[in-house]
């Protein structure tokens, strides 16, 4: 039985163009478009599945719906991931953890709020321990409504996110809309990263100490290395001629 190539469940403008032109194996494009094509076709997911939406999310990754056919695979580490899918109720105790994981994801990154609890808190909204929507602390790109939404709806959310990435590569403005009162929390990382003026040498020292407490880091003598780097930087700035 021959494979019917006209039937494709997922298509992309680049694929479509290359399929239409016979013998085409080289094409030119801009770097932005190439990079955005790479981003949208390899959306690695970091799941934060805290309740029943998480069960539907598992069906999204399983064989019937199969998010993998558009390059979206589920990863267990925020440092490998491009898109955080928050599926479920986020409590006040969980929110700082989610924010910390979000801060650990490398740019560019996107967030999808799945289900009415992640979007607005739903009927748990007024309970003392529930956060009324994850957009109070992280910026959200796509909202997938439902209680819970079915896996096809989540797939639709991923496709909308791809459209968004493509639109931003084409120069259209797709900035995330945030609640005005929440922008401060969304932009403020809990730990200032390297190069941030808010970062102190005390924090450097604490992080090195915690790394050293793992054991074999002692051999690297990181603390001394850090001191010498700081000393070099200080010398450099002193010897730098004033303009």
């Amino acid at each position, binding site marked *: 039985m021959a494979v019917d190539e006209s039937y494709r469940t997922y298509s992309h403008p680049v694929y479509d163009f290359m399929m239409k032109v016979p013998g085409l194996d080289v094409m030119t494009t801009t770097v932005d478009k190439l990079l955005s094509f790479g981003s949208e076709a390899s959306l690695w997911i970091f799941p934060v599945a805290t309740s029943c939406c998480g069960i539907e999310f598992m069906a999204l990754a399983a064989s019937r719906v199969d998010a993998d056919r558009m390059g979206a695979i589920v990863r267990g580490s925020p440092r490998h991931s491009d898109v955080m899918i928050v599926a479920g109720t986020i409590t*006040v*105790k969980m929110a700082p953890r989610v924010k910390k994981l979000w801060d650990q994801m490398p740019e560019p990154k996107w967030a999808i709020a799945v289900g009415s609890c992640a979007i607005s808190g739903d009927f748990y909204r*007024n309970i*003392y*321990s529930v956060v*009324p929507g994850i957009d*109070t*602390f992280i910026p959200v790109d796509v909202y997938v409504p439902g209680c819970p939404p079915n896996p096809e709806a989540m797939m639709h959310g991923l496709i909308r996110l791809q459209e968004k990435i493509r639109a931003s590569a084409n120069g259209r403005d797709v900035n995330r809309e945030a609640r005005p009162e929440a922008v401060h*929390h969304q932009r403020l990382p809990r730990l200032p990263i390297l190069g941030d003026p808010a970062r102190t040498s005390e924090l450097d020292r604490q992080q090195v100490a915690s790394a050293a407490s793992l054991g074999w880091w002692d051999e690297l003598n990181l603390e001394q290395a850090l001191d010498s780097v700081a000393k070099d930087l200080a010398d450099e700035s002193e010897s730098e001629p004033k303009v």
Partner: protein
Amino acid sequence: MKLLGAENSEEVQKLLIEQFEAMENSLGGPPVVAVVRHLELAKKLRDEYQYRIFGFVVAAHYPAPAKDANGVGELIRVSYGLRSVGKGTKLATWQVCIPVDGAIPTLVPLFAGADWQEREQFDLVGVRFDGHPDPRRLMLSEDWQGHPLRKDYAIDTKVHPWR
């Protein structure tokens, strides 16, 4: 309606009323035992009546005065339940009333299973358990202010910065 106190077997009910001077519960719950005799009662049930499994401890805050002389003013009612499997599955329940700023002796030395349950009641209702080995919050974050299952905990209390 079958009352919770009626769950007690006859011998436990007799023990509660005759030896521990338990009073009838005005709200229809289990018999009310004085705080000072609470630990003694639990020890007796465990050692002499084979109630060796810790069932539950549940606290409830009553802001208004109770209807009769069982409690005066604002109080917290703490209900206890022990289980026995040696003599068929049976339940022994009783209740202790304390003022909101009062304390109650812990049952952790008698039943290891009471540890987390008492921590939960401390966390949500604010019951103080005297002599608890690890009196930290169990469910909410450690810097939480107040006890949310108290009736005077406002629903719009600010939890910075998430709410």
